[in-house]
C-alpha cells in the first residue's frame, strides 16, 4: 500500500486515535519514517495531544450551583421556628470542632497556670495587667530556680556514684593492701589517716566524711540517696 503526505495529514488524528486498520497503520509508519516533511507534523500534533490531556478540569466557582438552583427551582427551603434558629448548632457536633475546642481549652489552661491565675478562687485583681506580669515573672523565676536545683542535685548524685565506682575498682590483692610507709609522711602525722590501716579503709573513711558533708549541704533526694549509700556501701 502506498502512502502520501496528503494522506498523512488527512488521517493523522485517526492514526493517533488508533482508528486505522493494521495495513493502513503500517503504511503510515513506513511513510513517516522516510518523510522529512511529515515527521515534524506528527511530532507536533502528538505533543499537542499530550498537552491537552494533561490539562486539568477546572473547579467551577462555589456560588455557581446556588445561582443555578435559585434561577431554576427558586431559593431553597430554610428551617423555621426553633429548629431554624438553632440550626447552626448542628455544626458544633462535628469531630473537627470538638478537637479544636479541646486544643483551645488545653492551651488556655497552660496559659492561665503560667500566668498564676487561680481558677478555684478567681479574683478580679488577678486579671490586672500589672498583676499578671508580676505573676508571670514570679512563675518564671520559680521554674528557673527549680530547674537549677534539680540539675545541681543530679550532679551531686552523679559525683557520689562516680566516687563509689572508682573505689570498687581499686585492686584488693595483699601486696597492694599491705601498709606502706608514705615517703612524705611519718607515723602519727596530723592527717586523719592511720598509716597502719589498709589503704582501702583509709579511702573509705575519706569518702564517708565527704558524703556526710554533702548530706548536710544537699537536701531531699540526694540526702536520702547519700544516707542509703552510707548504710549499704560503707561498713
Amino acid at each position: 500500500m502506498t502512502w502520501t503526505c496528503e494522506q498523512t495529514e488527512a488521517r493523522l488524528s485517526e492514526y493517533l486515535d488508533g482508528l486505522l486498520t493494521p495495513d493502513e497503520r503500517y503504511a503510515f509508519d513506513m511513510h513517516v519514517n522516510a518523510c522529512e516533511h511529515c515527521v515534524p507534523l506528527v511530532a507536533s500534533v502528538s505533543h499537542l495531544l499530550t498537552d491537552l490531556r494533561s490539562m486539568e478540569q477546572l473547579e467551577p466557582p462555589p456560588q455557581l450551583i446556588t445561582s443555578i438552583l435559585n434561577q431554576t427551582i427558586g431559593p431553597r427551603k430554610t428551617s423555621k421556628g426553633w429548629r431554624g434558629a438553632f440550626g447552626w448548632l448542628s455544626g458544633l457536633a462535628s469531630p473537627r470542632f470538638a478537637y479544636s475546642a479541646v486544643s483551645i481549652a488545653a492551651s488556655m489552661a497552660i496559659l492561665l497556670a503560667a500566668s498564676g491565675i487561680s481558677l478555684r478562687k478567681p479574683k478580679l485583681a488577678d486579671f490586672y495587667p500589672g498583676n499578671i506580669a508580676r505573676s508571670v515573672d514570679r512563675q518564671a523565676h520559680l521554674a528557673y530556680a527549680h530547674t537549677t536545683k534539680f540539675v545541681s542535685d543530679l550532679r551531686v548524685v552523679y559525683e557520689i556514684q562516680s566516687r563509689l565506682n572508682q573505689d570498687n575498682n581499686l585492686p584488693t590483692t595483699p601486696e597492694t593492701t599491705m601498709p606502706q610507709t608514705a615517703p612524705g609522711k611519718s607515723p602519727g602525722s596530723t592527717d586523719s589517716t592511720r598509716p597502719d590501716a589498709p589503704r582501702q579503709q583509709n579511702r573509705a573513711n575519706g569518702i564517708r566524711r565527704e558524703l556526710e558533708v554533702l548530706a548536710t549541704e544537699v537536701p531531699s533526694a540526694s540526702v536520702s540517696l547519700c544516707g542509703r549509700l552510707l548504710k549499704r556501701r560503707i561498713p
Partner: protein
Amino acid sequence: MAQGNFWVKLVTVAGFEADDTLEQDAQLVQHCLQGDGSAWEELVRRHTRRIFNICYRFTGNGTEAEDLSQEVFLRVYKTLGSYRSAYGGFATWMSSVTRNLLIDHYRRTKRDRITDSLEDAMPVVENKESAGRRPDQQLLLGELSSQVQTALTKLSPELREAVILRDLQQLEYNEIRQVLDVPEGTVKSRINRGRIELARILQQMGVRPS
C-alpha cells in the same frame, strides 16, 4: 420520588457510578419531571463542573463561562420534558444544548470581538489570556495550559468545539457526532483539522519548536 433519589445517592456513594451513570441520570430526569426538586439539585451538582469546563475552554473567560453555564441549566430545566433517553445519554443531550448556546453566544458577540481586536492593534498574548479571568483561575492554570487555552480561542468555533469535546472532554467520535449533529466523517475531519491548526498556532506562539 425521594426514595428513588435516595437509591441514586446510595449507588453513587458505593462507587458504582461508572457503569450506572446513564441509568442514574435517566432516573433523576424522571424524578425531576415528576416535580422532585432534590432530583434536579442532584442533576445540577453532577453536571455543573463538566458544563462549566466546556464553556470556559470555548470562551477562555471565567465570567462568560459562569453566565453561559447558568444559561445552559436554565434552558435544560425549561426543555427537560423534550428529552428522550432514546436520543442518547443525558450528558450528551446537555452537551448538545451547551454547544448550541455557545455557538449562539459566539455569533452574538462576534461584532464585539471584531471591535476589540481593532482596538488592540498589537495584541499581547499574556494580556489577552488574563483578561476577564480571576486570580484563582489564573493560578489553577499552569503556564502551558494558559498558552494552550489562548491558542484554543484562536481556532474557528467549529474546530474548537470538536477539539474540546474530543481532547478535553474525552468524548468518543459517535458521541461528538450526536452532540454536533453532523456526519461522523465531518467529525473526524474537524478534529483532525482542529488539532493540526492548534499545533501550528502553538508553534507560532513559540510553545513548540517548529
